[in-house]
């Protein structure tokens, strides 16, 4: 029997080449993408967008260690991002002081490695706050995270010497020893810094999922009772995951500290905490790449759409609700579903159904967007009118309401029909 078992080890699990395809190739792809971007000669705007994306990717990945992998819904994850970031900003100040003063430890500490300080700060905060928080999962955890976030955010405005009050604390990244020949002054040099740490962050959160603790965190999410009967303390599993998650959030905070050279108490508040929740969930919490997609999309929306439309937060809310209601797998879930559906048998049938559905969704979107934009223009009271594609759509025009209702109703009708057809077949 033992012989068979030993041989069968090789049968178990994915083969070497499968592992390579599934685990190594995506990471290499990420590294290549990160490395290639500068060769397209991006503008300053694009560079700063990319840097913001990098920060948010790591932040969202750290959040998903909790929500996706450990099943812990937190409303206060920005606390660890912020505290890590503040640790890094203060360290940046110490580097600056040391480089003008007598030296010491900080004089030889490169700014490039500030995210390490951020990691330590976030992990330390997680270690302190986590123990009472992680006793139970579910709603109690969510509520404690909310309470703690409110308390820390309030304290942030109260202790000016640490958090700098309303103006926050700023620093200068062009001090201390240079690494890899990067002065971190110009924005393209900052990009390399961000790209490096984004890769480290993604690699680190990925590696974590492969460890015994990472595996047991998923087991604890699915069945905390059973976990107790295989020798694990679910509370301790959650707690350790919480510390790591805080650490990676702090790492993102450290990246942000170097990127923006300033941190304000706002960074600790419920607003960024809510944002990271949206990023992870819209991207898809059950897929490793989900939060990356969510972070990229939302950062893009945040910086680009807010130029086009004041109502971008409304669109974001609509997108989020649509995902919660109709696509709990998030964007990654949709992509995986499309990919699988178009490969196997029934691909033609799937393709037809999806084309119809997409047509329905587009129609609904036309109606909704028109409604929102017309409302926003009306609400501004400047007398401006929404004029897409040369159409003139005042809030009291018949054409306006036709453009709103006809596509919307048609879209809903199409989706219902597609849904019924599918059920009829099943």
């Amino acid at each position, binding site marked *: 029997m033992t012989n068979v078992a030993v041989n069968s080890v090789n049968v178990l699990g994915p083969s070497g080449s499968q592992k390579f395809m599934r685990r190594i190739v995506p990471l290499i792809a990420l590294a290549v993408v990160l490395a290639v971007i500068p060769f397209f000669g991006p503008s300053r705007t694009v560079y700063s967008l990319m840097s913001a994306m990098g920060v948010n990717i790591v932040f969202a990945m750290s959040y998903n260690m909790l929500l996706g992998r450990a099943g812990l819904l937190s409303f206060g994850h920005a606390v660890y991002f912020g505290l890590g970031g503040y640790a890094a900003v203060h360290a940046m100040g110490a580097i600056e002081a040391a480089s003008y003063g007598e030296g010491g430890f900080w004089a030889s500490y490169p700014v490039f490695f500030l995210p390490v300080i951020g990691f330590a700060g976030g992990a330390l905060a997680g270690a302190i706050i986590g123990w009472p928080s992680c006793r139970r999962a579910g709603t109690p955890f969510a509520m404690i995270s909310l309470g703690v976030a409110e308390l820390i955010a309030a304290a942030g405005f109260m202790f000016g010497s640490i958090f700098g009050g309303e103006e926050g604390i700023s620093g200068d990244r062009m001090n201390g020893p240079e690494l890899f020949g990067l002065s971190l002054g110009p924005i393209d040099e900052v990009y390399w810094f961000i790209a490096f740490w984004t890769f480290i962050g993604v690699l680190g959160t990925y590696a974590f999922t492969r460890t015994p603790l990472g595996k047991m965190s998923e087991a604890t999410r699915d069945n905390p009772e059973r976990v107790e009967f295989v020798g694990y303390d679910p509370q301790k599993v959650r707690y350790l995951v919480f510390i790591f998650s805080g650490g990676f959030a702090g790492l993102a905070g450290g990246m942000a500290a170097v990127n923006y050279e300033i941190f304000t108490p706002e960074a600790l508040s419920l607003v960024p905490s809510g944002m990271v929740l949206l990023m992870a969930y819209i991207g898809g919490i059950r897929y490793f790449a989900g939060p990356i997609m969510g972070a990229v999309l939302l950062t893009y929306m945040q910086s680009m759409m807010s130029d086009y439309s004041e109502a971008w937060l409304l669109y974001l*809310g609509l997108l989020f609700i649509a995902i919660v209601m109709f696509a709990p797998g998030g964007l990654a879930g949709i992509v995986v579903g499309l990919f699988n559906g178009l490969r196997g048998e029934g691909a033609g049938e799937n393709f037809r159904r999806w084309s119809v559905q997409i047509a329905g969704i587009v129609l609904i979107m036309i109606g909704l967007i028109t409604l929102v934009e017309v409302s926003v223009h009306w609400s501004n009271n400047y007398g401006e009118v929404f004029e897409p594609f040369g159409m003139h759509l005042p809030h009291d025009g018949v054409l306006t309401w036709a453009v709103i209702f006809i596509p919307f109703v048609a879209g809903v009708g199409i989706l219902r029909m597609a849904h019924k057809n599918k059920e009829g077949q099943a």
Partner: protein
Amino acid sequence: METIVFSLLNGVIYGLLLFMLSSGLTLIFSMMGVLNFAHASFYMLGAYFAYTISEASSFWLALVFAPILVGLVGALVEKYGLRTVHVNGHVAELLFTFGLAYLIDEVVKIVWGRNAVDYRVPELLDFPLFELFGAQYPAYRIFTLFVALAMLAALWFILNRTRAGLIIQAALSHPHMVGHLGHNVPRIFMTVFGVGCALAGLAGVIGGNYLVTDPAMAVQMGPIVFVVVVVGGLGSLMGAFLAAMLLGLLQTFAVAIDARFADIFGWLGLSEATELGSITIASLAPMIPFLMLVLILMVRPRGLLGDREL
């Protein structure tokens, strides 16, 4: 002395307002397990609806119709939104209401603008009712007190003296039992959700002009409502009442106390010149609810009077 009397009065009124705002959520949370993040958004809608109605007609019509409208919106949200999400579990429901709160915030900003609207106390009640220690006390606050007490009485009557109330009471402590009694569970849920939202709406009608009606009011009140429900305990309206009063009084008194940390901890050598010593008790008032929330979840997860843990 006068500080104490005024703080007591204001604290009780604020506490009653909090209870009015939270009682609906206690019902919803206990029966359906949904910790509705958008509950305070319905409170905000109540205030804005009341503003619009009273602009067009009168405050008294608003007092009746604004809560009904809010209740209808709530029922629709339950029927077409929450019910779809329900199959995916409580976290999905919580997230749905989280998104909904976002959405209502933005819609309010578009429809009524980003600044506070001029939702005023009705003229009929805009006079000082009595004078105490040389300070005047506005009649509207006493009106608020009476509306809250009337709501309390009505709620008590419905829950204890009507058949529907008895079903709701049974469902509060044994949510899984309702189905076995042969009742239409989805309809009960929709009704409870609608009524809960209407109560929040009523709080908005009364609180909107007592406090201020602006798009930030939901975000400010939202977490505090959670505190009341969680601290009060699952399944217990009485607990929510106690928690609301406690919170109302604590916050009001904290604001009224003119002291700094240094005054209290001076014997430990804490000087007023230090950062910690210069913190005033009043500035801690907004933190009190969350301190209570975290402490109660750590020490007594079932809340003050809850019959089961969260």
